[in-house]
C-alpha cells in the first residue's frame, strides 16, 4: 500500500498528468440535480452540479452519493464518474436495489450529498488503447476515451472501445462514442446487436491483430475483468481493471472494501476505494 502510494505520488497532483491517475483531495458537497433521465429500461443518466468535483475528477474515479436523508438505506452508494462538462458531472446508474430505486425518483432541483472525486482512476498513457466494457462498465470508459483524446494521449483512431452486454439495451452511449470518433465494436450475448457472444472474443482478436503494443483499460463484471486480464498478460500487454466491492466510506478509512492483493506472500489487502478502484491487473489477479 505505502509502496504503491509513493510510487505514484498520487496525492500531490489532483489532475491526471501524463502518467498519473487522478487522486486529489475529495470534497463533500450538496449537488443540485440538473437532470435525471431514464435512458434504457433500468439505466438512468444523472447530471449533477458541482464544480469542485467536476474540476478535479479524472476517468475511473467515482463519487459516493447519499440517496436520501433517511438512515435506511444507511450508506452512500458509489458510482463512477461518467463525464464532466464544466461545473457539471454525470453518472450512469442501473436500478438494482433500494438505493438506486430511490435515486431514480430524485427530481430535478433536489440536492444530493455527494463526496468525490474518490479513488485512483485510470493511468493514462500514450499509444493505442483498447477499452473493454461490460455493461455499465462503459460509464467510466467513455470518460476515459474522451480524456485520452482531449488530453492528447491518443488520436481518436487509436482508441478502440469494445462494448459487451447481454442484449441491445445494455450497449450504452453509442451516439456519444460515435461523436468522439473512436472505433467501436459490440457484442451481445443474445445477438441482438453487434456480434453474438462475449466481449472477450473481440479482445482476443484485437490482440491478435495488433502490430504494436496496446494498452487495455477494462471495466465490467469481475469474471470479465479476470478474463480480459488473462488475455492481456498472455499477449504481454499492460492492463488496468476497475473493480467494484461493497463500500461504506469511500474514503479509505473503514477498510471495508478490500480485495486480496495478488501474489503477496501472506494475506494482504488493497482498498478498492483508495488503492483502486482502478488497479493494474497484476495487483489483483494472480497470473
Amino acid at each position, binding site marked *: 500500500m*505505502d509502496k504503491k502510494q509513493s510510487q505514484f505520488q498520487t496525492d500531490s497532483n489532483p489532475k491526471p498528468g501524463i502518467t498519473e491517475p487522478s487522486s*486529489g*483531495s*475529495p*470534497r*463533500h458537497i450538496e449537488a443540485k440535480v440538473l437532470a435525471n433521465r431514464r435512458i434504457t429500461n433500468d439505466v438512468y443518466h444523472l447530471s449533477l452540479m458541482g464544480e469542485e468535483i467536476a474540476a478535479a475528477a479524472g476517468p475511473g474515479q467515482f463519487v459516493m452519493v*447519499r440517496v436520501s436523508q433517511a*438512515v*435506511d*438505506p*444507511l*450508506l*452512500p452508494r458509489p458510482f463512477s464518474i461518467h463525464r464532466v462538462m464544466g461545473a457539471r458531472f454525470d453518472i450512469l446508474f442501473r436500478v438494482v436495489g433500494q438505493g438506486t430505486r430511490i435515486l431514480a425518483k430524485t427530481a430535478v432541483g433536489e440536492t444530493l*450529498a455527494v*463526496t468525490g472525486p474518490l479513488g485512483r482512476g485510470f493511468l493514462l498513457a500514450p499509444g493505442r488503447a483498447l477499452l473493454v466494457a461490460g455493461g455499465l462498465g462503459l460509464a467510466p470508459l467513455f470518460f476515459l476515451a474522451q480524456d485520452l483524446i482531449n488530453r492528447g494521449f491518443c488520436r481518436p483512431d487509436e482508441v478502440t472501445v469494445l462494448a459487451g452486454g447481454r442484449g441491445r439495451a445494455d450497449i450504452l452511449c453509442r451516439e456519444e462514442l460515435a461523436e468522439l470518433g473512436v472505433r467501436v465494436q459490440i457484442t451481445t450475448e443474445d445477438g441482438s446487436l453487434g456480434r453474438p457472444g462475449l466481449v472477450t472474443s473481440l479482445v482476443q482478436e484485437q490482440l491478435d491483430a495488433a502490430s504494436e503494443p496496446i494498452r487495455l483499460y477494462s471495466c465490467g463484471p469481475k469474471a470479465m475483468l479476470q478474463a480480459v486480464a488473462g488475455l492481456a498478460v498472455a499477449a504481454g500487454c499492460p492492463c488496468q481493471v476497475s473493480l467494484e*466491492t*461493497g*463500500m*461504506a*466510506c469511500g*474514503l*479509505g*478509512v*473503514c*477498510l*471495508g*472494501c*478490500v*480485495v*486480496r492483493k495478488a501474489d503477496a506472500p*501472506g*494475506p*494482504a*489487502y488493497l482498498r478498492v476505494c483508495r488503492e483502486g478502484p482502478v488497479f493494474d491487473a497484476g495487483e489483483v489477479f494472480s497470473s
Partner: protein
Amino acid sequence: MNHPDLTVTLGRLKLANPVMTASGTFGYGEEYAGIIDINRLGALVVKGISLRPRPGNPPPRIVETAAGMLNAIGLQNVGLTAFIRDKLPYLRHLVPALVVNILGETEDEYVEMAAALSDQEGVDAIELNISCPNVAAGGLIFGADAEATSRLTARVRAVTKKTLLVKLTPNVTDITVMAKAAADAGADGLTVINTLLGLAIDLTTRRPRLANITGGLSGPAIKPVALRMVWQVARAVDVPVIGVGGISTWQDAVEFFIAGATAIQIGTANFFNPTATMDVLEGITAYLTDCEVTKLTDLIGTLRLS
C-alpha cells in the same frame, strides 16, 4: 450570550470540545482533511493498533443492515512500530487530542503497547479496546469478564501516566459491573459502547455475508442501546463516560450528554455524512446557546426522572 464553554476533562486531559471520532471510522484523520477542518475536533481516536501488524480479515468485511452496518475488519493495521514511525509524526501536530486505541491478544501485549505509547510525545490518551468482537484471540474475552477487565486495567495503569480510557462492550448482561471494574482499577474514563455482535446471511449462497461469520453492529440502529448503557454507567461510576453508538446528529449527541456522557464519539455517521463531526459540533453549540447553558458541563447528566 457568549459562545458557550465546550471544554470537557477526561482524567487530566482537557478537550477543547467534546466531539471525538470513534476508533476505526476516521482512519488517521488525513482522509478527512479536504472535507472538514479536523483541527476543530475535540479529539481524534485512531484505528485500533495491535502490537504486530495485522492483515485483517478476508472480505467481505462489511454489510449494510437496517439503519446500521456490520463490520468484521479484523483489526487490519500497520502495527505499533509502524504506527509510531509513520503515523504519529503527522498526528502529533494536529490540534485535537490524540487517543490511541489499542488491542492486544494477551494482557502482556496490552501492557507492552501502553508502555511504548507512554513515551510518545503527542499521544494524549490510550483507549483500551477490550471489546472488539472480530478478533478471535483477545478482545471480547477481557471485556465480558469483570476480573479480567480489572486486572488488565490495573496492569496498564501501572505503566502509563497518559489518560487511560477503557472501551466497554455492550455484549454483556450488566455493563455496570465491567464499568466499575475498570474504574476501580484506575481508568480515567470509560468509552461506552463498542459494537453489538450480529450476523447477516446471503440467501443465494446460504453463507454468512461476512467472511468472519459474525460482525459488529454499529450506526443509528444501536443508538437506544448505547444511550441506555451510557446512562447506566454514568450513574454507576465517578469517572467520565464517553458516549458512542449511533450518534449522527447534534440531537443524538445532546441526548448522550443529558444521559451522563462527558464527551461523545462519532463513528459510522462519518461514513454516510463525512461532515457529521462538524455538524454535531455546530449543533451542540447552537443548542447550548439557545438554552442559555453557558457551560456544556452543566448539561451533563441532567436527565430528569421525576
